[in-house]
């Protein structure tokens, strides 16, 4: 009996009767609720053009930074454009956007005041305290105030850094602000070792030119970078990283080269006792003094000791230069083809004292 009353009550309700005769979805269900995170809204005039939104975006084609044409009075403004066909409405771009007020608005997450960094960057920015002259230009250039001054020293706050690289451009001292690649340190070491080995053997093979060298003149030779490039790419496939590591390593490289001319040796064995690592040995069987390159420290003791000029000692510096002048290529492989390593060789400064 009670269930019959319940049925009468349930089916007698106005809502039910209305729904039974007019079975349409109600309008409120079809509308997007306020909390719904829709496609990002772009406010062009706030954009600082840092590119943080593009690098935080998980979808490859969703955001592009666009720059308007310049007119007579103003530079064209830079701003992001959202491709709705690729945007996944995750709102990362709005969260990362460092401009104040925001250039991108998407959902409500970016109104959270506590900021955190989700930029997947290959670089980590570090201030080298030894080279930094504390001029503060990087701090002024930083759009997100990621560079802080602590005890008269600058430090990059990784939680705020968006890896835009503006500090790198503004730094007046070469090498004081570093954007290092942190993901493949082992490969970078192998590359530098490969470069040093190759260049050293290349220089040692240029005997004729080294023999002519006196303590006033320099020898300049060139070595095409493309000969090393294939091996470098085999070690580290990321061309952009590989090229920058190679160029930095070569430009900073300063090596000492020893040549060992056995024809002049008179077997006085003075050098054998002088060598601190035991790299020079006397072999009684074939009556020769041998120099082991892998043990050698390039300390120049043997060079200073030898009275017969068996050992020669050179200081070599390197610089990556352009082979042809007009070089507008953007592809790294094309750039590498045009680059040569300029090698400058001079005798060690000791030679001036020894020859007197």
């Amino acid at each position, binding site marked *: 009996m009670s269930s019959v009353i319940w049925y009468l009550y349930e089916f007698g309700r106005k809502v039910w009767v209305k729904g039974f005769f007019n079975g349409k979805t109600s309008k409120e269900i079809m509308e997007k609720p306020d909390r719904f995170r829709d496609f990002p809204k772009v406010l062009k005039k706030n954009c600082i053009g840092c590119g943080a939104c593009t690098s935080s975006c998980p979808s*490859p084609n969703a955001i592009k930074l666009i720059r308007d044409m310049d007119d007579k009075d103003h530079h064209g403004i830079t701003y992001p454009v959202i491709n709705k066909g690729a945007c*996944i409405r995750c709102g990362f771009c709005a969260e990362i956007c460092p401009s104040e007020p925001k250039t991108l608005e998407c959902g409500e997450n970016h109104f959270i005041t506590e900021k955190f960094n989700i930029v997947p960057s290959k670089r980590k920015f570090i201030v080298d305290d030894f080279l930094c002259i504390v001029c503060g230009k990087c701090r002024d250039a930083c759009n997100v105030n990621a560079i802080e001054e602590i005890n008269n020293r600058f430090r990059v706050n990784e939680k705020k850094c968006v890896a835009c690289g503006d500090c790198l451009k503004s730094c007046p001292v070469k090498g004081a602000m570093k954007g290092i690649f942190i993901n493949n340190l082992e490969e970078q070491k192998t590359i530098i070792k490969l470069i040093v080995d190759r260049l050293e053997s290349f220089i040692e093979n240029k005997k004729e030119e080294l023999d002519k060298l006196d303590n006033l003149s320099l020898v300049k030779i060139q070595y095409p970078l493309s000969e090393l490039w294939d091996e470098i790419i085999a070690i580290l496939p990321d061309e952009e990283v590989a090229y920058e590591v190679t160029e930095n390593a070569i430009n900073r490289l300063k090596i000492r080269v020893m040549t060992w001319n056995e024809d002049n040796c008179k077997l006085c064995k003075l050098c054998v006792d002088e060598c601190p690592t035991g790299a020079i040995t006397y072999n009684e069987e074939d009556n020769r003094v041998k120099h082991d390159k892998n043990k050698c420290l390039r300390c120049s003791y043997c060079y200073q000791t030898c009275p017969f000029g068996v050992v020669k000692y050179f200081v070599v510096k390197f610089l990556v230069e352009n082979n042809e002048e007009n070089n507008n290529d953007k592809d790294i492989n094309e750039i590498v083809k045009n680059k040569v390593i300029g090698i400058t060789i001079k005798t060690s400064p000791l030679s001036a004292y020894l020859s007197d």
Partner: protein
Amino acid sequence: MFQSLKNIVRKSSIHVCIVNCGGCNGCDVELVALFSPRYDIEQYGIYIHNNPREADVLLITGAVTEQWIHNIKRVYSKVPEPKIVVCVGNCPISGDVFNQEGGTVHAPVSNFIPVAAEISGCPPRPSEILNAILSTGPGAISNRGRERK
């Protein structure tokens, strides 16, 4: 006379077949929500079939994977005329997050079959899908029906 009668019938009852050509299933879940009582797609005369031979509209989700390049054309050829294709979600439009450098996704779908409408979103809301089907579906089908072959 007969043609206009056919158009009226086509407008009021649309038969739909869902094809997932290699996506994450997110869009398919949103499509399933359309059949639920909350959105109730059948009140608009839209019916779902698993068989393309019964369908007027192909709803495509997913970024075309290698195996689907051939099959998507086969499925399309089995739909009786007049037929239209609607892309649901970003994957068939641009490949979305799957279209990474070095990936093996063959988006967009429009490279393989003609597409009439695109619904962007990852995934789109059920109401967005419903709006798109209702605004393009009936008109497009009756227009295709008037084409002379």
